[in-house]
């Protein structure tokens, strides 16, 4: 590990230790925040008892579904928009300000259309995450070096062969960044929707525990979400960095 890596680890450990001390000595009251060690114990009990396993699996499945749909659909939309410059000129200002639109406002509509269930949640998560993939696809296809296109021309490749053997590998690092963002936004979308209105999932379980003053369970589940989000992001980020460094070669 690098020197910065060790310092980073030390900073995170110190922050958690400080929180632990503040909670144990009563500086932060128990009704506000539990000590990190207590959260971990609570999470362990939740997982061992297994009563929330279906909720946890539902959430993870929805996140993966939404990320997969957004990645595939976003890539397709991006490729089509890239091929039509005039459409692109019209859509680009909208894409630039898309994240300013509070997508969650449309969640009630999806509930009416799909009912309270996984479909409405996946739909809102896809709506939130697809634009990241579209933008990444556009950037990726823009950044293909012209020399590669010329090489394809010299070899007289068919458009299909060129797309598969030249364009896709050349744009892959950018596409992967899109996939990474898609996952992060899907997680946010799914959990936020479950939180606001739903009958299942981790977000619902946290909101339910909050409404019942069940701090133990609430903080255990929060810890779970934090661990899952950080672990997934770190893993995807490591792959992303490796691909990005390939670009600089």
């Amino acid at each position, binding site marked *: 590990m690098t020197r*910065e890596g060790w310092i980073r680890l030390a900073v995170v450990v110190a922050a958690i230790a400080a929180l632990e001390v503040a909670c144990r000595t009563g500086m932060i009251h128990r009704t506000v925040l539990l000590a990190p060690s207590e959260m971990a114990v609570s999470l362990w009990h939740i997982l061992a008892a297994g009563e929330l396993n279906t909720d946890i699996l539902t959430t993870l499945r929805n996140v993966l579904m939404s990320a997969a749909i957004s990645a595939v659909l976003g890539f397709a939309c991006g490729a089509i928009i890239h091929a039509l410059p005039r459409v692109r000129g*019209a859509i680009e200002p909208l894409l630039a*300000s898309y994240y300013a639109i509070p997508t969650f406002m449309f969640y009630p509509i999806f509930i009416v259309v799909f009912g309270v269930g996984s479909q409405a949640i996946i739909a809102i998560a896809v709506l939130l995450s697809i634009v990241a993939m579209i933008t990444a696809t556009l950037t990726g296809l823009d950044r293909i070096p012209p020399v590669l296109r010329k090489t394809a021309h010299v070899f007289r490749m068919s458009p299909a062969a060129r797309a598969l053997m030249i364009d896709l590998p050349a744009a892959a690092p950018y596409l992967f960044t899109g996939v990474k963002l898609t996952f992060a936004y899907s997680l*946010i979308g799914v959990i*936020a929707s479950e*939180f606001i209105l739903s009958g299942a999932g981790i977000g619902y379980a*946290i909101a339910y525990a909050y409404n019942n003053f069940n701090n133990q369970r609430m903080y255990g589940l*929060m810890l779970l979400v934090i661990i899952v989000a950080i672990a997934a992001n770190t893993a995807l980020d490591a792959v992303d960095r490796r691909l990005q460094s390939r670009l600089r070669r």
Partner: protein
Amino acid sequence: MRRMSDFLILIVALLVVWQGLHAIAGDTTLTSPAATFVKLGQLMRTDQFWGNVAETGQAFAMALVISLVGGVSLGTLLGLNRTSGVVSEPILIALYSLPKVTLYPLVLLCFGLGISAKVAFGAMHGLIPVALFTMKAIMQLKPVYLRTAQALRLSPAQVATTIALPAVLPEVMAGARLGFSLSLLGVLIGEMFASKRGLGFMINSAMGLGDIATIMAVAVFLSIFAVTANALLLLIDRAIPR
């Protein structure tokens, strides 16, 4: 000019798609564009609606100021030293991609049910991207600028205000645009989950009543506001000489 007309065609196309969806789904599921704008017009004549707008606007303005001031100063502080920048970047990215909704109960327990919880939640969403963009920009600053500063024996405060900040303004603007959207989202989600006032609460209560027209009217109102504000920020961004 052609771009402008293309954009107008896009808006018309979106309205046509909306009308088409309305024809398929029916009045109870999705109100038509015309009905939505009529409803919005009715709402805009009531005092209650403007009361909610003021409530949300106040919380949003405070969250935005905290995000921008806090984010820029945090980003500058961390970015000026290379080690602290490299150490904190992955931490900030991890915090950014965290589903912060899960932490909302914690915010409520700390700040209570009121405007301060909404402001804190909005700021939580907006501060990190602003800090991240500022920090990255400062770390990629041309070394010659800093060497000039050294040659002129500027104090760290002078370096920040006269060299670093002007040089990173474009990136800070990009961060500010993201911070703007996310603070608004944070405040609205906060209101949807636990509040008795504001546009988020209005949507949530309309959701309980199955009042689709109100939901759509408020959503359209917010979208128009957000896209217009974003377009203005983009214009300011382009007007900055560089």
